[in-house]
């Protein structure tokens, strides 16, 4: 780690450490019971207690998140391309998508489970449903935010529509899509957990629900910690991809 990176991360690390310390020390002094607010040590102990089959739960939830993320990404890009490519498609799709997006998707979750039963797939679909809309919008915007003059160049040189699309529109849209995928990464986590809350036989969301009914709060916190590890991993991966694939873009 270079000095610059050190200087950048030290303040947040110090804050994080201080908060952990306060969290560990203060609740016992206030006589707050562990089932209400377990300290960080208890949480870490629960998170590393492998009599709970963490790896199985982590696997299921990760699968749901990644599947939902991939579905949202692929579906969102496809819809965005359709909207940008054809005015008719845009007029047909946009009002419909706006309606779908304004639905509280969390409320649709029980229906998905009713139709598709328990399991990984319905939770993937809920994750995808929550995360796909920003991808559609950003793809369409990125594909159409092109200088008119650049399109004039295409016309002057007799370039067919697909060529302008491949050479100019698609690369222009890439940073927009990647920045939407960061939002989708977070939304997919929410979707997967919501699905597991409603009904599931495995997964970190189910662990939280079970721990809550048993008042085993340290385990609930531990599940939460594992969820945020997965979420951070996915978010970081998308951020790295954005830096690698669209280094010209200004988005952080």
């Amino acid at each position: 780690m270079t000095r610059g990176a050190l200087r950048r991360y030290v303040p947040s690390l110090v804050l994080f450490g201080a908060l952990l310390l306060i969290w560990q020390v203060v609740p016992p002094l206030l006589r707050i019971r562990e089932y209400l607010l377990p300290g960080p040590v208890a949480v870490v102990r629960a998170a590393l207690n492998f009599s709970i089959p963490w790896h199985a739960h982590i696997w299921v939830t990760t699968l749901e998140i990644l599947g939902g993320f991939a579905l949202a990404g692929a579906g969102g890009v496809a819809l965005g391309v359709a909207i940008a490519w054809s005015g008719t498609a845009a007029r047909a799709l946009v009002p419909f998508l706006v309606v779908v997006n304004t639905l509280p998707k969390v409320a649709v979750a029980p229906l998905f489970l009713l139709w598709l039963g328990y399991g990984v797939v319905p939770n993937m679909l809920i994750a995808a449903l929550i995360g796909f809309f920003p991808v559609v919008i950003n793809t369409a915007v990125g594909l159409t935010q092109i200088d008119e003059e650049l399109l004039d160049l295409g016309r002057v040189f007799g370039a067919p529509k697909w060529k302008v699309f491949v050479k100019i529109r698609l690369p222009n849209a890439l940073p927009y899509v990647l920045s939407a995928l960061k939002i989708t990464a977070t939304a997919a986590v929410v979707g997967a957990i919501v699905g597991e809350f409603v009904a599931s036989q495995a997964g970190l969301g189910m662990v939280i629900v079970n721990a809550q009914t048993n008042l085993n709060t340290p385990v609930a916190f531990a599940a939460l910690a594992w969820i945020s590890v997965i979420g951070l991993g996915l978010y970081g991966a998308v951020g790295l991809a954005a830096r690698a694939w669209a280094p010209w873009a200004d988005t952080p």
Partner: protein
Amino acid sequence: MIVLDGVGMTYRAASGPVEALRSISFRVDGGELVALVGPSGCGKSTLLRIIAGLRPATTGRVAVGGHAVTGPVPAVGMVFQAPILLKWRRIVENVLLPAELAGLDPGAFRGRALELLRLVGLGDFADRLPRELSGGMQQRAALCRALLLDPPLLLMDEPFGALDAMTRDELNLELLRVWGEGSRTRKTIVFVTHSIVEAVFLADRVVVLTPRPGRVAELVPVPLPRPRTVETRASPAFGALALQIHLLLARSA
């Protein structure tokens, strides 16, 4: 090379039809550099687009190279006010864009692209991204892009309007050099500007346009000797021409 005959252009705005151009007629000979000057909003950029075949005229006829213009004029070189380089492509790849758009093998033009970049002093910047270059350098690259396929006609829409005065003067000289002031094979250029000084310095003739609707107020020949140099701007003849155009614009305003 270019013949404009009674060209008019009316477009529909929210408040009703707006007449942008009215009965514009003039010719541009092959190898001539003609500047269009006029106040902003006089339709000079629109006129350039009509010549390029990117917008249809409402009335009148346009011919380029002996052919009536009915659609985009093939392979004309265009430079706009903004460089509009593709942010994700290196400079040389930006210069090669026209070849790719025209369905030609960009590899065959690479040597020429690098040569053009050297000619405008960007030889060392071929592999940089646009964001690493200053505005003036980006506009030089845009000029190279316009010249890549060696078009006989170059249409320039206030290409140096967004640059500072010093860079603009520098690029004016550069354009004349690249154009090949002395040579016989030089290109035809139509150059839109709102700078009288720039118009007189560059052009063989200046077309002075009136405010909306744009009409031709006067065609002013510029008999200043070529090659033009920094001293050209200081000559009395230069000052007299600039004053003449200034008065024409003031009278028509």
